[in-house]
C-alpha cells in the first residue's frame, strides 16, 4: 500500500472510530433529557439548556477526531 492510500485510510478510520463514542454519548444525553422532560414538562427550558451544553462537550470529541482526520488529509 502506498503512502497516499494509507493516508486516506487513516483519515477515514480516524473519524469513523472517533465518532462512535460521542455518538453513544449524545444519544444517552438526549435520551435522559427526553425522559426528564417527560417526567417534568415544566422543566423543559432548563433541561434543554443543560442538554445542549452537555451535547456540545461530547460533540467536541467527535470534532477533535474530525480535525485530526483533516490534518492527516491536508497536511
Amino acid at each position, binding site marked *: 500500500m502506498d503512502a497516499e492510500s494509507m493516508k486516506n485510510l487513516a483519515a477515514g478510520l480516524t473519524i469513523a472510530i472517533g465518532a462512535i463514542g460521542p455518538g453513544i454519548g449524545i444519544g444517552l444525553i438526549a435520551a435522559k433529557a427526553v425522559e426528564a422532560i417527560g417526567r417534568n414538562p415544566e422543566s423543559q427550558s432548563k433541561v434543554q439548556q443543560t442538554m*445542549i451544553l452537555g451535547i456540545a462537550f461530547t460533540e467536541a470529541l467527535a470534532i*477533535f477526531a474530525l*480535525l485530526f482526520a483533516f490534518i492527516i488529509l491536508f497536511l
Partner: protein
Amino acid sequence: MAAEMHVSLAPEPIAHIGSFVITNSMLTAVITTILLASGMIIASRQIKLHPAGGFAGAIEALIETLLDQMEQVFGSRQRALYYFPFLATLFLFILSNNWFALLPGFNTIHLGDVPLFRAVTADLSATIALALVSVVLTQVYAIRELGVMGNLRRYFSSNPAMNILGVQEIILESTRVISFSFRLFGNIFAGEVLLIVISALLPILGPTPFWGLEIFVGFIQALVFTMLTMVFIAMSTDKEAAHH
C-alpha cells in the same frame, strides 16, 4: 474533483506590511469588528425611554435576553451587569463571525490564488486567542473578587493530601485553553469543509440544508463558548463556594 476543492487548514497571507503578514482571516476580523461596533453605536444613539422598536429595539431585546440568561447563572442582576460587557462582547463577536462567514463570497472571491475572506473562527490562532482571554480573565476576576490568597485557597489548603487535587485542578483549568479553542475552531472549520465538499458534490440545492445546519452550529458554538466562560467565571468568583 479533489483538485477543485480549495481547503487550507491555516489562514493564507493576502498582503504584507514590512515583515508583518496580513492574513485573510485578519481582514474578516477587522470588517466584522467595524460592522459590529458601528451597529452597536448606532443602536445606542437611538435608545429612548419608550423604545419605538426597529433596529435599536431589536438590539435591546437581544441584550435583555443575554442579561436575563446571565442573571440566572450569576444569581444576581448586579453581578451579571458587572461581567456583562466582556461576556456579551465575546458572544456577539463569535456569533457575528460565525454567521458572517456563511455569506456568499467567502471561499469564492479569490485574490490571486488565495480566498480574500476566511472565517475568523476557522483560524486556530484567533480561537486560541479567544480561549486565552477567557481563561486568563477568569483568573483575573477571581483574584479581583477573592484576592490573591483567596484565589490560591481555591486550589490549596492546609491539608497536604488535598493539594494534589489542587494541582490537578490547575492542570485541568489550563487545558481549557485547548478544549475551548479546538471546539470552536473544529466546529466552524469542519462546517466550512463540509459546505465546500457538498458544493462540489451537489452544486444545486445540495448545500441548502447544510447552510441551515451551519447557522445553527454557529449559534450553538457562540452560546457554548460564552456559557462555559460564564459558568467558570461564576464558579471561580463565588465568595461562598470559596470557603469550604
